[in-house]
């Protein structure tokens, strides 16, 4: 059973790395071959300055991507060592959830590059592209949060009971409700949610308000609840688990997951303000992009460091 589980996870990891690698290559090719049109060049950049800019963004993104893979492979190796135990099964679910989240990130990068192409050559497909892209952006993190939640809940149950876990949810529920309210208000204040008067800027959703609420808003909010509960479950486990050495290593693992999930939720909320970013200067947009990438890299490196420390306990 142990060998079969290890074999399955190895096959999964191989396919995952292969598909992600292909997506990365697609992102690279699409980014550098996207035509410079009037509509897609809001900042009046020359071809040379745009290429330099793309390199300055692609390189840190590649570092973030590499860091995320380093963490994922470390997680896989760690779960292979403890796969038959209760904590092993739980950590495995968290690992798969993190892999799905990273996969979603790569997909959104490819979609971002593809958008430039569609704006230049295939404007008739723009509406369809926006709708599909929005649903992918909703669905992939939702699956990821669900897996991380299942794993973290299982882990928390190894140290406490359901009643205690539920009694610790009041504060996270309040935070998520406030975030959800801010998100819903900003989303429905977005003047280009159904159609856009700006050339080169597509509408955000191309859907009716009811449809946006039911198929975008609500799944997002469910995902945030799952994400926030996951952070909460991991905090409970970190606090209640025994073992000075284990606890110290797990704290780092927990911090990494908290940064990654928390940051992913914040990014989704911030994306609802993207229309407001239209008036921000180009320099500030770049600063924001670099900060986002730096936080992502930090989260994945902290996670990888925690996983390596936990792995050491299992191989010494």
């Amino acid at each position, binding site marked *: 059973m142990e060998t079969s589980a290890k074999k399955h996870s190895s096959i999964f990891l191989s396919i995952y790395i292969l598909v992600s690698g292909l997506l990365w290559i697609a992102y690279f090719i699409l980014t550098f071959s996207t035509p410079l049109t009037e509509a897609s060049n809001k900042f009046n950049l020359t071809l040379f300055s745009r290429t330099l800019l793309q390199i300055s963004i692609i390189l840190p993104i590649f570092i973030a991507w590499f860091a995320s893979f380093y963490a994922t492979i470390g997680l896989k190796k760690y779960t292979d060592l*403890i796969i038959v135990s209760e*904590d092993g099964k739980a950590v495995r679910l968290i690992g798969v959830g993190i892999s799905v989240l990273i996969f979603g990130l790569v997909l959104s990068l490819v979609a971002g590059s593809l958008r430039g192409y569609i704006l230049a050559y295939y404007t008739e497909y723009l509406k369809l592209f926006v709708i599909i892209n929005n649903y992918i952006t909703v669905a992939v993190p939702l699956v990821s949060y669900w897996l991380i939640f299942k794993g973290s809940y299982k882990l928390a149950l190894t140290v406490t009971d359901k009643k205690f876990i539920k009694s610790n949810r009041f504060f996270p529920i309040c935070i998520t409700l406030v975030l959800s309210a801010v998100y819903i208000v900003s989303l429905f204040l977005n003047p280009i949610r159904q159609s856009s008067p700006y050339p080169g800027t597509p509408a955000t959703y191309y859907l009716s308000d009811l449809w946006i609420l039911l198929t975008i808003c609500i799944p997002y909010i469910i995902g945030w609840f799952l994400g926030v509960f996951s952070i909460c479950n991991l905090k409970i486990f970190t606090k209640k688990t025994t073992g000075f050495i284990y606890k110290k290593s797990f704290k780092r693992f927990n911090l990494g997951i908290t940064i990654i999930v928390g940051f992913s939720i914040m990014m989704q909320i911030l994306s609802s303000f993207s229309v407001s970013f239209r008036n921000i200067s180009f320099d500030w947009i770049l600063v924001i992009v670099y900060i986002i990438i730096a936080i992502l890299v930090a989260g994945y490196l902290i996670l990888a460091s925690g996983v390596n420390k936990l792995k050491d306990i299992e191989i010494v």
Partner: protein
Amino acid sequence: METYNQTIKIATDYLGPAAERFIARQVAAHLKKNPKDLTKEDLLKLTEWLRISISLLTEDQKMVDECIGRIQSLAV
């Protein structure tokens, strides 16, 4: 079996959920025996290996000494 369980109980204070796997691995690898057959007579040799292994996981030598001392006390 009793010695093995008591050893795990002490190790859990330091290694949490990883304690059972850790002790089973040390017994199997260094004493070449089934972990459940661990006896009080094995503890002295086992703690020699445990000192080395746990020292690789933490720099807190005081904690290592404390853990080894508690496991050695089971032999008495």
